[in-house]
């Protein structure tokens, strides 16, 4: 059984472990380090529930090996909250952007990447940006509103 010793910076903290080469990043995050905010949905690269940021880019952590993240930075939903909720988290709360909440961590991480690249997206750009994340409850309308809420709030407070 091939293993490697890796260190991944997760939400600003260096996390080390001896891992099997075949360990998926999502399992490293959830099982090795107990960060269960990142969800496993379809496990087949479709649903986006496991989305995290890898060096700032949104990726499906069920389709990346943990060894590929060695020496790199990962941000999960647990890393979004600072002194207060991130405007995206606040937006999902204020606009009822979730019902069961299973897709929400992935939705927020995808939306974070989207707003980092494009702080003022149109509705179509938001829908396009989250098209790799499936929600079976909301019909997406309130998710779009939540992202718009965050976009507006982030632009009002440019230091955020």
């Amino acid at each position: 059984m091939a293993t490697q010793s890796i260190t991944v910076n997760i939400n600003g903290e260096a996390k080390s472990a001896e891992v099997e080469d075949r360990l998926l990043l999502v399992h490293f995050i959830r099982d090795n380090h107990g960060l269960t905010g990142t969800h496993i949905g379809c496990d087949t690269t479709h649903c986006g529930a496991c989305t995290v940021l890898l060096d700032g880019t949104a990726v499906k952590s069920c389709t990346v090996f943990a060894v590929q993240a060695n020496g790199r930075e990962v941000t999960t939903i647990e890393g979004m909250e600072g002194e207060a909720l991130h405007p995206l988290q606040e937006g999902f709360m204020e606009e009822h952007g979730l019902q069961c909440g299973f897709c929400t961590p992935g939705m927020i991480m995808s939306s974070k990447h989207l707003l980092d690249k494009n702080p003022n997206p149109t509705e179509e750009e938001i829908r396009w940006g989250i098209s790799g994340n499936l929600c079976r409850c909301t019909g997406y309308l309130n998710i779009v509103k939540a992202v718009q809420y965050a976009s507006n709030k982030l632009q009002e407070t440019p230091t955020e």
Partner: protein
Amino acid sequence: MIPGSFDYHAPATLDEAIKLLGELGEDAKILAGGHSLIPMMKLRLAEPTNLIDINGLSGLNYIKEENGYLCIGAMTREATLETSDLIAEKYPILKDTSEVIADPLVRNMATVGGNIAHGDPANDHPATMVALGAEIVIKGPGGILGGRERTIAIDDFFKGPLMTALEQNEILTEIKIPNPNGKSGATYKKLERKVGDYAIAGAAAALQFDGDNCSSAGIALTNVGPTPIRATEAQDALVGTSVSSDDIDKASELAAAVAQPVGDHRGSEEYKRAVVKILTARAIQTAKDRAEGGS
């Protein structure tokens, strides 16, 4: 789902990667974006015993024009292609193609080289590259003078489902597309059930005009055969014409005739053939509009 066990290798150079491929033999696979390979490994449809990760190699991620070609490094991410100003301006067919591949999260990892090297006839770049008459640059092991490099025409690259002209110890390093010259236009049209699905069918068209008449045409089809299919008869039917609606109708009929769809959960053979006809007609029309300066 957990993939089978394998040994992970992260070589520092391309030569080292090629050497490893040779040493490790048949059960070694290249890990590029991994968004075809890793899902297959999780389903145990692929069980390589060694993975050679080329994500750390420098010099395989670029989009540049050089010596009459657009050159795309094999490790260029789909998201990079999708957002490139050069691509949007001069090669919109590549934007059309990359933005319908899987979904935005997948495109952040997936690579252009991987989409082609995987050899899946359901992938979208293959038909586009056939229509554009691309060339594929391949590096293999060499003697004391360094690595052997060969360039082959895209028509010689795809051999069957998941089978390509790549030898076990070779790596696809670059895709070269001849610069468009004069009056020309190209596009890719795909019908999918939902974002992220493979094409029910797809059609790429690239047209060159001399005055009002079509001087050359490239037409190729996605996911309606064991490889991308070049619709030669449809191309021939357009050359020398003004690409009128009658000409488009005739060419798209010929494209549908050459398709080899298989009925499955995405539709019956008959339905897919009808889709090929419509998508081909739309692709030809858009290619013509673009050649005439429209979008």
